[in-house]
């Protein structure tokens, strides 16, 4: 038999039992579609989360007080005997490749303006915020760099401005934050939520003012923006050396954004893989479908196999014919599943904008290859049975 004959024989066999083939293909298609769709959702969430974290820029290094680095709250952020000071932040500005430094204290206080008051998140920060966190003022300006930055200026988040001033311009207005008077010099542009924190329901004040307001010595974090071209670990090492020199010991924790994104990326990758594996169960069940249908096909086509053998076809040729049929069913299922899955992902992405989807092509490839392999594996037993038939006995069945 020529290769063309193999192909046309297999196609004829699949077409001859149209309803049956269609159902078998459907089984595999559902499995592949499940994997494609689920990984598309997983990949979409992956990108969404990474985008949330990179909205502040990617070439960042964070320094926090305290040596223990847990993902949760570190006690050292609240209180410690060896504070991370504003002077430390100043000193870090002189480290080579460092482009900007912002010292951060975060707290909670009532902000009052006119007759209204709102309890909200207070950020003590420096003039570097627009550059380092990529958050720009929509109107007015951010905290100025002059005179040590300690003047009583405040920059409102978009939501806080709406709550306190409505449509009126807050620029130049006086507000009381934690009982102290500040003048509004800017309003930040809309930024949205991150991990449950509303970044618009917030107010920025100079870090020195915040330290005084909350009656503390230590910063909670120092964020450092470094030259994009520089190596993050080299910059981190220089930061470490400088702070060790200033503090006498390593009583702080340095986290580079690279590391954090890497850790988060790998966690999300595992999640996507798990979801893909769950969808893979359906693919396995679809494989059993191919196995069942091929077993039935071999039993029904004994006479045909006997005839083929009588006409001179070898055992290996019969084997290949049935294997091809199984793989063809699986491939058709894989193609249909890809179509359904991609369509479904597009539909979800369009109808539910909150749930971003994105095709995870590596998993799509894995799903397709797995489908083909499952088809091959499912075809082996029936094909072996067909090849092992005795031509005389098989022909006799007719």
């Amino acid at each position, binding site marked *: 038999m020529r290769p063309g004959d193999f192909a046309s024989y297999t196609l004829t066999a699949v077409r001859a039992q149209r*309803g*049956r083939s269609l*159902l*078998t293909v*459907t*089984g595999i298609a*559902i499995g592949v579609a499940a994997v494609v769709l*689920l990984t598309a959702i997983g990949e979409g969430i992956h990108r969404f989360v990474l985008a949330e974290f990179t909205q502040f820029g990617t070439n960042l290094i964070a320094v926090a*007080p*305290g*040596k*223990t680095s*847990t993902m*949760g*709250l*570190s*006690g*050292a*952020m*609240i*209180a*410690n*005997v060896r504070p991370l000071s504003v002077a430390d932040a100043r000193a870090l500005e002189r480290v080579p490749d460092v482009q900007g430094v912002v010292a951060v204290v*975060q*707290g*909670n*206080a*009532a902000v009052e303006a006119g007759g209204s008051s*709102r*309890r*909200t*998140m207070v950020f003590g920060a420096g003039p570097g915020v627009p550059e380092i966190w990529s958050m720009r003022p929509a109107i007015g300006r951010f905290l100025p760099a002059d005179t040590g930055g300690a003047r009583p200026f405040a920059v409102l988040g978009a*939501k806080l401005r709406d*709550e306190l001033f409505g449509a009126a311009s807050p620029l130049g207005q006086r507000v009381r934050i*934690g009982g102290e008077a500040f003048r509004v010099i800017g309003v930040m542009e809309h930024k949205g939520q991150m*991990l*449950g*924190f*509303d970044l618009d*329901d917030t107010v920025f004040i100079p870090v020195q003012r915040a330290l005084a*307001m*909350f*009656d*503390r010595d230590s910063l*909670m974090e120092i964020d450092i923006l470094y030259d994009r071209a520089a190596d993050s670990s080299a910059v981190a090492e220089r930061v470490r050396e400088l702070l060790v020199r200033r503090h006498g010991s390593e*009583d702080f924790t340095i986290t580079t954004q690279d590391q954090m994104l890497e850790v988060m990326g790998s966690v999300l990758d595992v999640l996507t893989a798990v*979801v893909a594996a*769950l*969808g893979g*169960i*359906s693919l*396995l*069940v679809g494989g*059993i*479908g191919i*196995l*069942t*249908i091929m*077993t*039935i096909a071999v039993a029904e086509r004994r006479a045909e196999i006997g005839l083929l053998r009588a006409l001179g076809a070898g055992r290996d040729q019969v084997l290949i014919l049935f294997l091809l049929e199984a793989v063809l069913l699986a491939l058709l299922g894989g193609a249909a599943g890809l179509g359904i899955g991609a369509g479904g992902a597009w539909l979800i992405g369009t109808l539910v904008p909150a749930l971003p989807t994105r095709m995870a092509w590596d998993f799509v490839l894995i799903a397709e290859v797995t489908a083909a392999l499952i088809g091959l594996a499912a075809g082996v037993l029936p094909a072996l049975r067909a090849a092992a038939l005795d031509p005389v006995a098989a022909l006799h069945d007719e």
Partner: protein
Amino acid sequence: MRLDDTIASAARTLTTHVTRSALTLLAVALGSAAVVLLSSLGEGARQTVLDELTALGTHLLIVLPGRNETAGGAPPLLGETPRDLTLEDALALLRSARVERVAPVSIGEAPVSAGSLEREVTILGTTADFLTVRQLKMAAGRFLPPGDPERPAPFAVIGQTLAKELFGTANPVGQRVRIGDRRFRVIGLLEAAGVSLGSNLADLAVIPVASAQALFDNPALFRILVQARGRAALEAAADDIRAIIRERHEGEDDVTVITQDALLGTFDRILGALTLAVAGIAAISLAVAGVLIMNVMLVSVSQRTAEVGLLKALGARQRDIMGLFLTEALLLAGVGTLAGIALAYLTVALFNANVAAFQLSVPDWAPLAAAAVSVGAGLVFGLLPALRAARLDPVVALSGRR
């Protein structure tokens, strides 16, 4: 046809084609086992988290300084506020009849040293009631002594990890340690409680709250843990706490009160939804198994055309034929599901017997849901083949042509 005739006939058909039936059963069994197993994984995770939350204490309320007015937003976790939550505030809470115990918590980080060894750990300042409120146990020695909470005392209780790092296998009780620039005597060792929701209770030192405030030169409390008198009093106690603090803070409502029930409810909902989602994904495989049942049934109908013709010629009604084939489909789905559920329970039992760290737990609804979905699939996907069989023309069918 009588019911037992129908069942016997369907069962005979299935046993005649052993391979085909066995493979279909396998498919259904895999699908239902996946549903039950994955939901038991989710349920196990839910139980673990809820147990951990419950172990935090009974009838617990947590008072945080600061309050955000963002609807549904996160509470102010770091808790820096212009007006501190003070030890006096904490002690004032005892005025409420619905408050049984109060444990103020101030927290920070400082180096703890003994001899030449030093380790930087979390320092937790609190009072004697902390042990009861947080339901902790002592491994050796005793906890902080009761007494005037506003008076510092050079006593420290340490966790297991810290004890091992500083003293090795030696008994830490009675030893002297230096925390920051102050000297303390270790009077007790906490029993290993593991990591509970982010706070590592093994790697810390507990000192009297007044000592911690002096050490960190910070009068602000980080949290106040409150134990209410009974579960029913939780909400009322929360109201009392807000009222007392408001009174003390010149009318300002500047604390957040979280009840343990609210916390439990939130985690319960999240993990419950996750379990359902995972079980739903597994249920897709049951749909695939349903398609296979339909396929096998169609083959069965086409092979038994002559038989159906004969049955009809002998007076069988359409209903009887439909019943015959539907019974076959339902038998496949039902027996497959039973096998799958049994397989799942066996796996869960084996897993739980061999893994101590995490226990799987089959939720009550899982086997029922698996059975309902697969039998439903059997019914739906068996319907078309059964209809095809029932509508066969007896004459044509008997003549053997399709």
